[in-house]
């Protein structure tokens, strides 16, 4: 059993990276490994939006992450600086910056790059998807 952390740098639909990250995470969990954290950075922050609306016959990756979190108590962390730049906000950031809406699902947490450093430092393996 290994402790694994994942970094996701690709946006859904535009790139396969985040789908591969999701499938790898599922496979690691199925093998009994611990996935300590999934950290969404760069365009990966687009995984964390309630407003993504893929056609009904296509895979909904944002929902899939949310369901995985509910099943496995995953730590899904979104870089706050990368998210604000790209229009991914939670309710408190929206209020702070006087924005009319917010879109971060409750299963995701906005936090700093220290969370990525910590995940890299404390995990047996740190895998990057979307370089």
């Amino acid at each position: 059993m290994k402790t694994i952390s994942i970094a996701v740098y690709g946006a859904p639909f535009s790139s396969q990276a985040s789908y591969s990250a999701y499938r790898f995470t599922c496979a690691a969990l199925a093998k009994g490994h611990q996935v300590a954290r999934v950290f969404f950075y760069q365009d990966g922050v687009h995984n964390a939006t309630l407003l993504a609306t893929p056609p009904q016959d296509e895979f909904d990756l944002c929902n899939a992450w949310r369901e995985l979190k509910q099943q496995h108590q995953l730590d899904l962390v979104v870089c706050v600086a990368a998210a604000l730049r790209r229009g991914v906000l939670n309710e408190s950031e929206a209020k702070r910056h006087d924005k009319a809406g917010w879109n971060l699902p409750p299963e995701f947490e906005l936090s700093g790059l220290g969370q990525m450093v910590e995940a890299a430092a404390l995990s047996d393996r740190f895998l990057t998807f979307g370089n």
Partner: protein
Amino acid sequence: MPAPGNQPHQHNPAKKLLFRLSKPPYGRSHAREAIDALLAAAAFEQDVSVLFVGDGLYQLLKNQQPNAIDQKNFTASFGLFNLYGISRIYALDTDLSERGLSAEQLLLPVTSMDRASLTTLLREQDQILSF
């Protein structure tokens, strides 16, 4: 993953984290967001090395003027490397020569190495973070 939050775990020894930067400075956000990530790692007292690969070396060119394309000149952040104690900066000798780059053209002193030395360097790391 233990205690969430941005505080590093003081009882954990520093890990050897190598940041592999392979993208040119503009066009995509990889270079800029990589610098933010590696400065965060140094701030959390990790043992940071930086490897510039291929066109990633263009990040180090002096006299960049990205305001002409509505981008911020993030190379000012390289001036923080000394303050953050980041002194292990590497590149492949062939990557430098293929681009006609010499030390005086670059913003930081880079240790040039051959492929065998690079292999050794990579083996010494606890984690490699690719951007």
